[in-house]
Each structure stands twice: as C-alpha cells, then as structure tokens.
C-alpha cells in the first residue's frame, strides 16, 4: 500500500530488500513474468481451475507437469493453452499452469498425456528460496 511505499522511501536504496508482496518481475524485453508469490492474490479470481489428485500433488510441487492420470477436476470450457490455477483437492492453491488440452480433449486423451503445463508452484518457496524475489 502507499503508506508502505512512503516509509520504504526513507531506507537507503542498497538496504531495501523487499516491500509488500512481489507479484512478478519485469524482464529486459519489458515482459512481465508473474511469480508464484502472486498466487494468493490471483487465486480467488481464477476463472479456470484445475484440481489435482492427492497422488500427483507432490509431483506438481516438484515442478513436473500434470498428467491426465493426476487430473481430478477441471472447469468446463477450458480452452487449450488457457492460463489456469492449479488446486489440490482440498482447495488449496498450488500454483499456476497452462492447460495443454481443452476440457473436451482431456476426456479423450490417454492417461500419460500432459494436460497442464507447469508454470509456477508453491514448492518453489522451498526449492528456489534464494532466487525467489
């Protein structure tokens, strides 16, 4: 919030490490890469969600893609390559992903096919602690 900003202004630039919550970073080519730290803010607004079965929760948290065998539920009319938020069966948000297949295709495809590409997951808090933000 703004109050925070004002306060942080008085800290020497070299000493300021973080302020509020980091949503993501801007890259050199002016793209914005969203990071997992934005999950809490975006998750409630997600229109397309994917639920993952308990068995493949861990696998997703390690950074792997979600296979059809691990897919629990998926919202209807998810288009292909649609950005999704990945949840566990207990409705705990696990991360972000991209739907590899639309919902219709997901039904038909074989169990070993990838249905959600992994983009960011909360496991990164532990894996990439240093490079997080």
């Amino acid at each position: 919030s703004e109050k925070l900003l004002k306060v942080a202004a008085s800290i020497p630039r070299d000493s300021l490490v973080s302020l509020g919550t980091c949503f993501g970073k801007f890259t050199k080519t002016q793209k914005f890469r969203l990071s997992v730290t934005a999950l809490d803010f975006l998750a409630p607004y997600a229109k397309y969600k994917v639920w993952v079965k308990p068995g493949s929760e861990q696998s997703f948290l390690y950074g792997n893609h979600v296979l059809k065998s691990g897919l629990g539920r998926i919202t209807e009319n998810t288009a292909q390559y649609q950005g999704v938020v990945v949840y566990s069966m207990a409705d705990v948000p696990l991360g972000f992903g991209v739907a590899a297949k639309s919902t219709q295709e997901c039904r038909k495809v074989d169990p070993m096919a990838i249905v959600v590409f992994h983009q960011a997951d909360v496991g990164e808090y532990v894996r990439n602690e240093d490079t997080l933000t």
Partner: protein
Amino acid sequence: MGRKLDPTRKEKRGPGRKARKQRGAEVELARFLPPGKAGPVPPRGARCRRCGLPDGRQVPLHKEKRAVRAAGQIPRGQSGFSDGNSKWLTPAKAKKIQSKGNNVELSSDGEVEEGSWEMEEEEDGSSEEMVDDYGASSSEEEELLPIEKVALKQKPDRGDLSEDDSEEEEEDSNRQNMGQKEKESTDLQLNLDIDEEFKLPTNEQIEREDILFYLLCAGFLAVYDSLMVFLPAEPPDLHVIHQRIKGNMEVLQDFVVKREEGRTRQEYLALLRRDMAAYYSYSDFLLMKLMDIFPLPELINFLEANEVPRPVTVRTNTLKTRRRDLAQALINRGVNLDPLGKWSKTGLVIYDSSVPIGATPEYLAGHYMLQGASSLLPVMALAPQENERILDMCCAPGGKTSYIAQLMKNTGMILANDSNAERLHSVVGNLHRLGVTNAVVSNCDGRQFPKVLGGFDRVLLDAPCSGTGVISKDPAVKTNKDEKDILRCAHLQKELILSAIDSVNAASETGGYIVYCTCSIMVEENEWVVDYALKKRNVRLVATGLDFGKEGFTRFKDRRFHPSLKSTRRFYPHTHNMDGFFVAKFKKFSNAIPQAQKEPAVEAASLSTVPNTVMEPQLKKKKLEGSKADREQKQPQPALKKRHSLQVQRRPLKA
C-alpha cells in the same frame, strides 16, 4: 489361535503370551467376584468347560480351586472338590496363598510359572484332565518366569556391581589418604552407604583419568600395573564419571554431614566441574558460568535437557487458516500433533509424522510456519495492535515478523530488518509464503536505526547472542564460547538496545514498547543489558504478560540490578521444555535522551538531564494516525529545539 482342540490330549502348556494375558483377566475377574461364584466362561479352546468333566461335574474355575486350597474347605456352590482332595493338597501352598491375604489373589501381576503347569495338571488327577489352569499355581516362587528369577537374582548382583565400581575408586583414593579399607567393606550393602562414603580421588587419580595424560603414559602401562590395583591410566569411563558426579552431588547437598575431613568444598566443586565437563562435553568456562546460574540439582537437569532436542512446534498462520483446520489437515496426512498449551492459541507441537513437516502442501501454501515454541513468547509480550508501525530489528528467518503481521492482520506497517543479507532471502521467502503484505524488508545494521527511520510504535529486538539457550540445537556452543565471545555479544546487545529504544516514539498512543529478547541464559547478556538500558534511557520495565516462566535475577554474584527486573522472564529447556529464552518488556516514557550520568538511579529521571542530544526526539514526534502529516511537521520542530530543551529539563516531554 491356530491350535487344534484335542481334548483327550493333555498338552503341556508353557506360559504362552496369550495364556499370560488370559491369566491376568482371570485374576482381575477373580478380584471382583466372590469366591465360589462361577464367572463368565472365557472362550478358550482347550479348556472345554462346556464339556465338563467326564463324571458330569462342572469344571471348577481355577480361582475357586484357589479358594479351596487357601481356605482348605469345600467351595460353596461348587460340586467339584471334596475333602478327599486334601491328601494331595499341600499345606505349604495354601499357606503361601493365605500369606497373600486374599484367597483370590494369586501372584497379583498374573505371572505364570513354568514348572507348575505340569504339576497342576498332574495333581488334579485324571478327573480334571480338561482343566486349564493357565499354570495357575499357588506357590509364588514357582510362578515366576525363569527370566524373572534371573532378574531377582541380578538385583543384588547389580547392587554389588555398582558398589564395586565406586568401591574401586574409593580404594584408589584411600590408598594415599588412609587405610580405611575396613570402612569400605561395610559399605557393600546399600548404594546409600556408598554415596555417603564418597571420597574425592586424589590428584593422582585425577591425573590418571585425564585423557591427555592417558595418551602420554600409554607407554608406562606396565610400570603402573605393578603399583596399582585397578586398571591404570584408563580412558575416562563415562559410567564411572557419572557415578562420581552423583556421589559428589550427594555430598555437596549435605556437605556438613557427608564431607570428607580435610577436603574443602572447593575441591569437591572443582572435581564436579571436571567430571561434568568430561561427561557432557562442555568447556570449563561455560560450566563455571552455568554453576553460577543454577543450583546443583537443577544444573544436572539443565545439562541433561540440553542433550535432547526440543519437540518440533509449528505456528498456525491465522491469515490463511485456523488452527483447527490445520490440525485436521495435518492429521489426515499422518502427523501426530497436539495444541501447544493454554498459553498459545496458534501453536501446535508435532510428536511424529510420516511426512516431512517442512514440505507438506499446507506448509507450502503458507498455512503454518515451523518455529520454536519460545519464539512465540516475545511476540506475545510485544502485543502488536492493528495499524501500528513496528520494527523488528533482527528478523531472520522471519518467524517472529510473520507472527507480528498475523496479529496485526496485515494492517499497519512492519519494518523487518536484518544485517545479514543471505538470511534475508529466507525472510522474504517466508513473508511471501505466509501472505504477509504489510512488511518492508531492509538490510541495515541495527545500530543505524533511529537515523534510518524512527518513530515506531513498538520495537522487537531479538538480539544476536551466544546461543547458550539453544545448546540442544547446536552443541558446538558447549565448547566454542568463552569470556570474550560473551562480552562481545553483550556489547553489541547494549548498542542495539539503545538504538531500539531510540527508535520508539514514546508519545505514541497505543505503543511506546520495546521488547528485548535473547535465546541465551547468560546473565551478562540478559539482565545486565536490561539494567544498562534502564540506566541509560528513559524507559522502565513493565510486565511481559507471560504468566509462566522464571523471573529474571535481581541480583547475581556481586551485581545488583534494579528490582523491576523481576518482571522479566527466563525460560529454560529443563523446566518448560522449550529453548532457553529471556524476555524483557520496556515502556518508554520520554523521548529525551538522558546525558550520561554517574548516578545509580536506574529510572533515569528526565529531571536531571541536560539535553544536548535533543535532536533525535524531535524526529520521533510522530502521531499514530497522521504519520504523514507529522512528517511535514518535522521541519518546524528543530526550531523548537531550544524550547524543548528547557521543557525536558523540567518534566518529561509531552506528546
């Protein structure tokens, strides 16, 4: 379970596991039922009470037989026995049972003896082939398992053994002292006697046990052999040392009575220190410090507690979940946990878990934080309110900061500072993971603080310390700390606490509090620093709000501290089962900084101050709500310096 029932075949039954259990049940039942009453028939394969006896009689329950034997009479309502049995009923057994007082009381713990199985069955004769006595026998001795017999035998043996050990030492020590061998011989009876006769080994014995000396004189083994009775120049035997520690403690507890003539208390203490240093692997310096802080029995408890790790505790992140829900979720994952205690609403203690606690999806989603129980205390003492400005001066790895944030419900502002840049990564990670949005993380040296930013409502200072309270986490502290380290820590802590106090705005409406805490139990780092702050600044100690924990010292050795130090709290691993900790809460009542005074007045009255350094208080004059507005007011304030200086002389600065 898998036994084939063959009523005609009498099996010699040993004391099986089930048999013993069953027997116990019988005994329990027998206690409640009066003798002679048939209890419920336990469904037991080979016993076949349903079939009854060939001549149509009921098979008597063995407890009834007990009664018969004990009482030597026909059981009431039982047609089984007749007086004719008295021939083969041995009076000795009956006596045995009677001696137990109650005829239904067998060996009360339901022991099963081995040999009596066969005996019983044979004695009962053919008419009672079906009877399963469970080896119920009258004689108490026979009822013991062979292993129990051995155990009984061993008890006096063991006693002798330990006495032998200490005997040896005493012998050695007495060689040079006096020929008191005759005294020893009478000491073999009780351990108590041994302790009473605890003798200090002479210097030679001490030398011999010194491990360096041992290495040195490895070559002289043969020579020593001829001189001494016991093993010469042995490596320090831990068992022996342990016994000696115990003996020494006994003597010291009751020194007047148990002391050895001609030996001073100092010698006993010196030996105790050496032994404890050897046994628990502490440096002598640290042990001396600990002996000053703790009385002797507590010291042993403390040292023992440091060998064992404290239980793993977590703190629920109330920003994202409730303790109940979290507990449920973790239990579903296979974690064995309990709420931490009455004093905490968010803590959980983990007993064991089938999944790594630091890697569950709940952890990654930020529902809880792995944190020591003692780390919850300073934040509870700080009691941050919503919409306050809080400074956490040494925040890594961020556990306390996030707890502050959750208590404030993400309102207000927290400045999380740490001077160590690498550890700040974990702070940032944790804050993001737990969903803390009101934090600013900075990497300044804590001592710069009021200069960088001041005017906080509350400050938490978890000062870097020697770590003597967390020895169970880091055993290296036992040996690598010495006088210089402690003093260096203390010096840094004193500087930090002054900066912390200066960063607080005394005029804040809801705040003006500083909490100082360390994970150390050394008086130099705790009470001394607090006392120093009381002398140097306009603060006073207030109650921490923690109703458990030991009070801080008001005097220690030759130092005398302010009496208000009673409101500080000390926590120990052996009394509270959490890491050693110290918490003190200050309230700042004036923004003025007293000039260095030589007076001993601890609550440095602002009356006696000459405010040369009144500049800083100006910067801190910030009200809670209108913090931004006040900043603009900062400019005119230096002009008021002169006026303020006069005011301060007379009375504390008013908001």
